[in-house]
């Protein structure tokens, strides 16, 4: 999706070299996530979506700016607030929504749900539900990618992105993963989408020395930077050089990507721990409005009518996805309950039933 016109002039921002088409694509992607999440909340309130459901609204510049800084075949893995990453990576709104509706046409055939968005063709290795559990996996993706070119002589140098929330900073898994990544020279960037809250606990109450998170990365010999995650151009300007460096040197990186979520931790969060004023203050800096203003005023790449029709198009795309999800077939327990447990089912594996090969995943 990312297309660079020319090398930026001296003193210019890296993002100055991004084409209008790329910026419009990013604007579209961010608005799609926003609209998608609005409809997700509606569907959840109508009890069409079950389980735990974590809304990405407010954080759009994080997913779009970082994913816009890597190649399509660079591996990406994230935590449970994963709808934004899935859409930014190119998953269709239909497959994403159908998954939450628990339908066969969902990206995980209705077996994963909101927290487990997987998309093989788009190199998204999952949404993962246990806080921090994806961080050793992120190191493993980087290990696999490095081993492929270094030992097997297959492919080129890659960078893996491993997203986590600030709550995962407190999990041991992250510390083990960072140690391994630095020790083994694994090209993985730990992107902390720091929205200031670990569920309902503010960052100052849940993690030590929270104003200097990059010092932790430094403790492992990992380069760490802070980035304002509310400005997608700034995300690109700051993040892209780190990506290039980590790819080139085959080293890990760490980013304290400062952001904010407009909604609660999950759909069941009454948000007693923060004020409405606080939320409103952040909304004034809204990342979509900021990018729109730039592409409209600075670039002249879109006008009011163009923006209106883009919004309309996205609205229709998401409504279509909801409609699709609603009308899609539920998975049939006769074929799907016992499928995808094993690649090679064998007699004697289970006393309660025989494992099967289910229907092929709609994405692959």
């Amino acid at each position, binding site marked *: 999706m990312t297309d660079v016109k020319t090398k930026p002039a001296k003193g210019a921002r890296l993002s100055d070299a991004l084409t209008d088409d790329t910026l419009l694509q990013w604007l579209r992607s961010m608005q799609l996530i926003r609209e998608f999440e609005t409809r997700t909340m509606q569907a959840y309130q109508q009890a069409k979506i079950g389980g735990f459901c974590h809304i990405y609204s407010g954080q759009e510049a994080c997913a779009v700016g970082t994913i816009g800084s890597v190649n399509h075949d660079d591996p990406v893995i994230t935590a449970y607030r994963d709808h934004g990453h899935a859409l930014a990576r190119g998953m269709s709104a239909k497959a994403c929504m159908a998954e939450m509706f628990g339908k066969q046409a969902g990206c995980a055939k209705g077996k994963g749900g909101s927290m487990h968005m997987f998309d093989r063709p788009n190199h998204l290795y999952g949404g993962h539900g246990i806080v921090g559990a994806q961080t050793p996996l992120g190191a*493993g993706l980087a290990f696999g990618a490095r081993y492929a070119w270094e030992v097997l002589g297959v492919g080129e140098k890659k960078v893996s992105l491993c997203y986590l929330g600030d709550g995962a900073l407190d999990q041991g898994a992250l510390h083990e993963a960072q140690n391994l990544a630095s020790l083994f020279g694994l090209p993985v960037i730990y992107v902390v989408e720091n929205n200031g809250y670990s569920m309902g606990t503010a960052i100052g109450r849940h993690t030590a020395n929270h104003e200097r998170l990059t010092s932790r990365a430094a403790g492992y010999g990992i380069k760490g930077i802070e980035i304002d995650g509310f400005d997608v151009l700034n995300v690109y300007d700051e993040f892209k050089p780190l990506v290039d460096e980590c790819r080139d040197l085959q080293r890990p990186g760490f980013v304290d990507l400062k952001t904010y979520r407009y909604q609660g931790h999950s759909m069941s969060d009454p948000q007693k721990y923060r004020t409405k004023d606080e939320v409103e203050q952040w909304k004034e800096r809204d990342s979509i409005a900021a990018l729109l203003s730039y592409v409209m005023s600075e670039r002249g790449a879109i006008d009011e009518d163009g923006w209106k029709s883009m919004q309309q198009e996205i609205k229709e795309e998401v409504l279509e996805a909801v409609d699709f999800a609603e009308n899609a077939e539920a998975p049939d327990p006769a074929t799907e309950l016992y499928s995808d447990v094993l690649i090679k089912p064998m007699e004697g*594996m289970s006393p309660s039933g025989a494992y099967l090969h289910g229907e092929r995943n709609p994405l692959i």
Partner: protein
Amino acid sequence: MLTMTSPVPPGGQLVDHPALPGGYAEPDWSKPLPSREGDRVIQFREALREAISEEMRRDERVFLLGEEVAEYNGAYKVSQGMLDEFGPKRIIDSPISENGFAGLGAAAAMYGLRPIIEFMSWSFSLVAADQIMNNVPKMLYMSGGQWGCPIVFRGNDGAGGQLGSTHSWTVEGLYANVPGVKIAIPSCPYDAKGLLKTAILDPDPVFFLESERMLGDKAHVPEEEYYIPFGQAARLREGDACTLVSFGRPVNFCLEAADALAGEGIDVDVLDMRTIRPLDMNSVIESIKRTNRVVVVDQCWPFGSVASEVVTQIIERGFDWLDHPPVRVNTEDVPTPYAKQLEAAYLPSTERIIAAVRGAVG
């Protein structure tokens, strides 16, 4: 992701699966297994090393990672000499960081490699529980069939000898409860080689349980390559008086018990299950139809153990053939003690097995 075609052993075939680009190899199952008799006597640990080395020579995607596997030549010398042959990119020393490196292995497998992750002891796998119980077995399912996890976790299981409560875990009861993994547990060097080679080719996660107390055991192991199919028990003694079912190290106690009982005129069937998942209950039921009595020997704690599962399935499928209630011999239901006498009293032993069989046939 890596889409390299899986190398296939001679006579085998490549099987496609959408979650594994490049497919997986099936050995030639029609080829008869080589004789267990012979004079190529090597240790259990050498049999394991042969299995790993043979597969690593054929498939460059296979690597071994764990604590002390490379420069130290293996905490228990399983990987002795392998660093010299395969180099530090494929025989990889890891820090003491089980949760980290178990997860690293899991994602390397998703990416397209074939990791072998060594736990110095399965007792230490407990700190990696989230990765090996929550991520590895469920990846294929929760991704709706997009990503498998072809990985082998292996290491020492069971009481190693006065190691106390925390270092003496037998994990099979715990891990067999989780769907999505295969569990192999050899009792002798011959099976160790053949089962581990099968585990490495298998496209699903395999937990491979060895025993520190058996690594020095010596027996004939064929030099040639061979694969022992999962889910096929070995009948190691034949008799009509009682069926003895076991797996892993206690199989050896069952054989001693069988030999002692034969001297009293009690001939027993001894079934070495070799894999817990899959579990060859057909062989157990067939045997019970002849013996009408069964003793299950299991080095797990009794509550919710593999023995409980075996007995349950016997009741479900073979109740009418039984002339005596099924009997189980487990470790005693207490934490593993340190003192020699206490540990000996805690573990299943030849004497306890003999007593259990006498009780069942008496």
